[in-house]
């Protein structure tokens, strides 16, 4: 009996300590979506049980290690206890019940997280190595930045142009892979007006780490303004720049002339002499640029093809229309 009281005290102490450490507010990022509320609630239930079970086993072990140490020179065996069937049934049955309860709570939470709003704002999210683009089909605009109206459910239709990626904003809690050839849904109702970072959460190659995009949650009016400002420009040169930003080129090619990017800079490219991996020189004219967009492996620029392959996806010939490609090239020509 003495031992039982002792160990119960140790367990109680450890449980309180565990509950103190394991509070969702200390451990999770800011809660910024309606879905996160349900998920964080489930986290806190789980943390209660984890704190208790950790304390239970560790308490019994710590107590045993301290109290039931063999005295030096004591060669006797301990008491012969082979087992106890009611006890075994209890510690099989009770966890089973707890597990089923948690599975039911888990299912309900999932249902709440997935609950659709018929008036949700549809946004098409495309991941490609290594950039995100967002299309608002209702308004016919595209952007390299995800802008969401606050307190309105967004239905994200997520896909990929090349390899797997995953959409994750830690403050929204929910995550969804982007799979080529499939469209996956994710519903998010942002509740806080501020900036977030969207991060790719499924390894996607060389620049996976840096495949991030800005997310901005704004009031309804500011969202309208964003849509107005994001319309496809009428000027073909400006349109080229628009495609550059929204179709993925920007992820790897800069326009400030800085070296060390994934792909060569666009600044001063047009009309220049480009040195290739095999040492030969080519003149960067429209034909060269068009070929490099559609078939990046055809001519490997020195410093960007040491492996014998270009890092650039080979499918821009499909994802861009010929007009878009021409407009992009037209815009690159202006970058002196």
């Amino acid at each position, binding site marked *: 009996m003495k031992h039982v009281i002792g160990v119960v005290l140790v367990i109680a102490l450890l449980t309180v300590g565990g509950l103190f450490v394991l509070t969702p507010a200390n451990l999770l*990022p800011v809660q910024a979506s309606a879905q996160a509320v349900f998920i964080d609630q489930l986290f806190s239930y789980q943390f209660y049980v984890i704190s208790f079970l950790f304390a239970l*086993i560790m308490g019994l072990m710590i107590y045993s290690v301290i109290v039931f140490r063999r005295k030096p020179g004591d060669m006797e065996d301990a008491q012969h206890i*082979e087992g106890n069937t009611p006890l075994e049934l209890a510690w099989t049955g009770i966890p089973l019940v707890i597990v089923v309860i948690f599975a039911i709570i888990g299912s309900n939470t999932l249902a709440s997280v997935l609950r659709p709003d018929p008036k949700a704002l549809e946004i098409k999210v495309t991941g490609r190595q290594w950039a995100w683009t967002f299309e608002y089909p209702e308004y016919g605009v595209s952007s390299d930045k995800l802008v969401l109206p606050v307190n309105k459910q967004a239905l994200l239709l997520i896909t990929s142009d*090349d390899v797997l990626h995953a959409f994750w904003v830690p403050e929204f809690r929910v995550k*969804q892979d982007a799979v080529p050839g499939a469209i996956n849904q994710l519903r998010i109702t942002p509740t806080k007006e501020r900036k977030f970072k969207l991060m790719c959460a499924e390894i996607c190659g060389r620049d996976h780490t840096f495949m991030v995009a800005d997310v901005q949650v704004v009031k309804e009016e500011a969202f309208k303004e964003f849509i107005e400002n994001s319309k496809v420009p009428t000027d073909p040169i400006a349109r080229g720049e628009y495609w550059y930003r929204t179709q993925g080129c920007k992820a790897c090619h800069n326009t400030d002339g800085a070296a060390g990017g994934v792909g060569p800079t666009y600044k001063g490219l047009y009309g220049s002499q480009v040195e290739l991996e095999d040492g030969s020189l080519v003149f960067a004219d429209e034909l060269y640029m068009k070929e490099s967009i559609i078939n990046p492996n055809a001519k490997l620029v020195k410093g960007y093809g040491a492996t014998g392959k270009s890092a650039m996806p080979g499918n821009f010939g499909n994802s861009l229309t010929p007009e878009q490609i021409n407009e992009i090239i037209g815009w690159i020509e202006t970058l002196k």
Partner: protein
Amino acid sequence: MKKNQYPILKLGMTRGLIGFVIGMLLGQALVHVIRLIMRLPFNGTLDAVWVVGGLFATIGFMYGVGALDAWIKSALGEEVTDHPEDDPSWPSWVRYFSFSVDHKVIGIQYAITSFLLLSVAGLFALVFRVELVQQGLQIFKTGDEYNTFMSLHGIVMIGAILLGIGAMTNYLAPLLIGASDMAFPRINGFAYWINVPAAVLLLSSLFLGGVNTGWVAYPPLSVRAPLGMQMFFLGVYLIGISSIMGGINVIVSVVYMRAKGMTYFRMPIFVWTALATAIISTTATQLIGLSFQMVMFQRMLGMGFFDPAKGGNPILYQHLFWFYSHPAVYVFILPGLGIISELLPVFSRKPLFGYRWVAMSSLGIALVGFFVWAHHMFTSGMEEYLRVPFMYSTLLVAVPTGVKFFSWVATIWKGKLDLSTPMLFALGGVAIFLVGGLSGPPNGTVATDLHLHDTYYIVGHFHATMFGGFIFPFMAALYYWFPKITGKMYNERLGKVQFWLLFPAFYVQSFGQMFAGLLGMRRRVADYPGMSQLNTPHLLVTIAAFVIGLSVLILFYNLWVSAVKGAPAPLNPWRSRSPEWMLPSPTPVHNFRDQPFEVVGEPYDYGLAGSKYYVEIPVHGDAGTPAAGAAVGAD
């Protein structure tokens, strides 16, 4: 001095490596010749050249090392010895570098290879842990260099763990069931040696462009990955073959070769876990082999298994991959949990609490483990309705795992605990596996997993299960059976120093990783720009990783020095009831052939006056009679 002049060219290892190089050249030449004859244009990749080269190299290695000798001889109608004896004129180290059929030699070969690979993979981890101390890229020039180290850390560790499992099951299972060897000694030798070319191929990917996919190698990324990816696939494929062969051997040995009187419920508890493990390896490994083979074919032959443009589906790969790779987790941990169950009674001087429940819980975990694989795919975009049933099955694993924890705690409760190094590692294993186990349900529950998936929380979770379920018990087993293996005692003080470095360091590492993950640290990234809240956890994890590295160096030093000049060990240093301790240490080649025994009682009846686990069977003059547990046949 004659003993030291063993010709190095006669050594199986040397011949194997020569065979490897010749095979590689032949295989590569073959592909080039076929290309020339068929006038195929060079298609820009060397995938086929290296894969065929690697396959031929493996065959060359196996031929060179002598693993195929008996089969070739028997095919030619020559006489084959069932269990050839080593030439007594050889120095004793030779047998560890040559093809051997003695399960104890094979066990030690597995253990040493496992430690080599654990060290290599550990070094990879230390390199990228230094990278992660600070924001920005410091060591690696590109993300792909980081990806290569991170991916190889993962997959080499997995290979090393499988070899460690091989070490434990091969060395221990026959000794614990009273057999003179495994059922198929030659398959056993083959299964070990194929790991050597496999490891060489796997590590060669470092020099062939690397691997940038993480250990899961999901297509389409793995289809576009550099050439190193093929060597990665081929290496793991061969380790898988070893795993299947080893599993068959364990099952047959346990079923047919138990000592007289050893019913299933009188087997030492480790044997139950070895059996459960073997059932998983023989039935699930094919799926990872298949999934890797399909990506290899997609790369080499353009078959569009996982390419949506050709009617394939990337999600299919994930199903095939996890159908093995989740049960594989139980392959990694079950033997370790068996070691814990084996050691706690000895060092508590009390019976294992609820033997039958513990034995059945291993089979329970193995069985349920087959129905949970899709919990790795909750965010993958597979059919949404599948997520809920897989959540139920996943959470169900908690029940048999709980039985183990409660039984362990009940075993030490009111015992007479002897905290020698093996016991410290067993208890440490329980305390760490507990962290791994309890951090599991939030991943297994879909809603919370939507946040946790692919974060450092998962990294922390599975490192805790691997350390608690494999690393700690493996080290416990090494210290515990060290006197049996070498006949010498290890240094107790160094053993304790190692434990008290490793145990707290691991807690820091594990909690640091989980904390970072909850806060938003993604997996498999080289940097965490703009997330200053992660600086401290990353620094702590890196420091802990180096302390872990230091503790492993102390272990190596202890084992090496003790094996060379340790004090002679008593016959049964732990006063265990298990039969292997009645044999002299190191154990003679044929174990119990000259000293058979009959099981007459329960294995763990500590504290029951007058009880015996086994009695020795007196042997009559004729030593040539096959005694209990002789090999059931040649393979």
